[in-house]
């Protein structure tokens, strides 16, 4: 027994996502007990639709955190991408070409936000927390300028397409699969290694010839890209623009990342944990709903679970 437990620490340290996966499975089981229809495809798909934006934002946040930085502006990025997309689509007349242009403009916006953050933090060496708070305020303001009030519906094909699917596979599943595939590819690049080296010990990485500054900028670019992806999904879900859409995502994405076992100090962890972390946060909402607890309990329980997971993670890793 002691021999078995002694292996847990190192194991968990390497596969930091295991704890989040365990929590997600546990919550899924509870959810299933409370809601027997949980495993039906329709229910699963609607759950996935709800969770997907946070999953994507959390993936984006993960790259930045791995480099020991942070992105508090990621929520405002989501808002800005959303309004830019709907405004461009609307301005170009709302046909298929306009939708494509709108989505491209949205992705470009996300990348632009990431670039600004990356340049400020890695190039100009501003403190990441305050910097991305400040850029977040700017992005939020820009979003309000682009679209002062919620509204401006997107063309029907957009949201129908998002709610529907391709070759019998739902769009949300396709998006998730594509995102995960992209992550897997990124994980096999030199960039992913440079990222963990920079976050683990920036000076050592620099001395080893790792292009630290460029690596950190790329991490912010990826955060912007995944935020844009999340925003495009949210646009499909809400079918309109809302300058305040992204509000809570900065903090909940950080919670998801931390729940997923990625160290805020950088260098350790990965996207998979964040995916499970986001799912955990989502499932907590479900469980509270189906346990007929008042909706108000959600924040409290989420907060407690995040703290408990952190404390647990620390205690396990210390052995």
């Amino acid at each position: 027994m002691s021999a078995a437990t002694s292996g847990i620490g190192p194991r968990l340290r390497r596969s930091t996502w295991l704890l989040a996966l365990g929590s997600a499975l546990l919550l899924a089981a509870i959810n299933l007990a409370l809601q027997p229809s949980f495993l039906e495809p329709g229910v699963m798909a609607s759950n996935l639709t709800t969770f997907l934006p946070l999953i994507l934002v959390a993936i984006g946040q993960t790259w930045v955190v791995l480099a020991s930085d942070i992105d508090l502006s990621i929520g405002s990025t989501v808002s800005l991408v959303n309004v830019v997309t709907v405004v461009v689509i609307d301005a170009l007349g709302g046909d298929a070409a306009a939708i494509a242009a709108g989505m491209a403009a949205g992705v470009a916006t996300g990348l632009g936000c990431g670039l600004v953050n990356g340049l400020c933090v890695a190039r100009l060496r501003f403190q990441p927390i305050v910097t991305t708070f400040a850029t977040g305020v700017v992005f939020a303001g820009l979003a309000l300028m682009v679209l002062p009030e919620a509204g401006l519906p997107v063309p029907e094909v957009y949201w129908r397409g998002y709610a529907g699917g391709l070759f019998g596979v739902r769009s949300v599943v396709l998006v998730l699969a594509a995102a995960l595939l992209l992550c897997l590819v990124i994980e096999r690049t030199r960039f992913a290694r440079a990222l963990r080296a920079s976050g683990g010990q920036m000076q050592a990485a620099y001395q080893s010839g790792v292009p630290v500054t460029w690596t950190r900028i790329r991490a912010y670019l990826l955060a912007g890209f995944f935020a844009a992806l999340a925003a495009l999904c949210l646009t499909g879900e809400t079918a309109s623009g809302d300058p305040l859409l992204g509000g809570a995502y900065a903090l909940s994405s950080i919670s998801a990342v931390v729940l997923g076992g990625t160290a805020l100090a950088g260098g350790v962890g990965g996207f998979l944990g964040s995916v499970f972390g986001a799912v955990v946060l989502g499932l907590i909402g479900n469980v509270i709903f189906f346990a007929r607890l008042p909706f108000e309990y959600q924040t409290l329980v989420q907060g407690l679970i995040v703290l408990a997971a952190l404390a647990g993670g620390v205690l396990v890793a210390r052995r």
Partner: protein
Amino acid sequence: MSAQNPSASAAVRRRLGALALHPLTLALAAAVALLALGEAISPGFASPGQIVSQLTIAALLGMVAAGQTLVIIGGREGIDLSVGGVISLCAFVAGNLMAGTDAAIPLALAATLALGFAVGLLNGLGIVLLRIPPLVMTLGMTGVIQGALVILTRGVPSGRSAPALTALMNQPLVAGIPGVLLLWAAVALGVCLLLHNTAFGVRVYAIGANPEVARIAGMRPERIRALLFGLSGMFAGLTGFLVLGYTGSVFVGIGLQYVLPSIVAVVIGGTSLAGGIGGYLGTIGGAITLTVLQSLLITLDAGPAGRQVIFGLTLLVLLLLYGRQRGLRG
């Protein structure tokens, strides 16, 4: 002054130079410039009444930022994101304890401070015992507090400020100055004395500047750090108490608007997020500058969008001035 050597005038000159470059001086100069700009654009912006009301708003921010200053100086990425939750919670508790009666004020105040301190200390214990990064610990704590508040209030504003508290916030006490400003002055004096004229203050700066040196010199960095978070909670509690007086009653998210500005006020005030340097005087300047900037942006009629953009850009410029970190190359 006592016996002087020939270089006394040089020393005085250096003193004056240091004073001119003090973050408080800089921040106040910025505030005065903003006031002048506001007055030029919209006459009356810098009227005494307006200034007092802006200072009142700054006082609330300044009190939260007092605690924020302490944890940031204490180093090791010290930061307290839970102040917003604590403000809301304490405003709620105070409002329900006093329920509109002056007699209950002392009890409400004591309960508020104790509650704020307890929550802060809990943060501190999580940070030093479980080694959870402060950012996450206080963020998680915010979730817990907000959640608890939602349950307690069921989403409806509740509690009522006592008349005397409301008067403290909104009515002139002496020479046209409301009581809250006098209170702020007292708090400022207390915090500055604590940081500069007590052994505790010396220890706080030491653990922030170099915890290993502090430990070898016989200090206990963990204990001090936990205590600093307790104090931050206490200041947030005090702010919550005053916010209740300012607004009369409380809604759940009332404190959240203070979280990031409190950090920004500290940074503008010249306290480094890396810990070990800075002080409360600078933070006072930061709180005032930030408040005047925000109200100027309102006066400018830039609209909420323009206000945010200008506000954010201003912060970035300030970071350019003194928020840069060390380079990798020696």
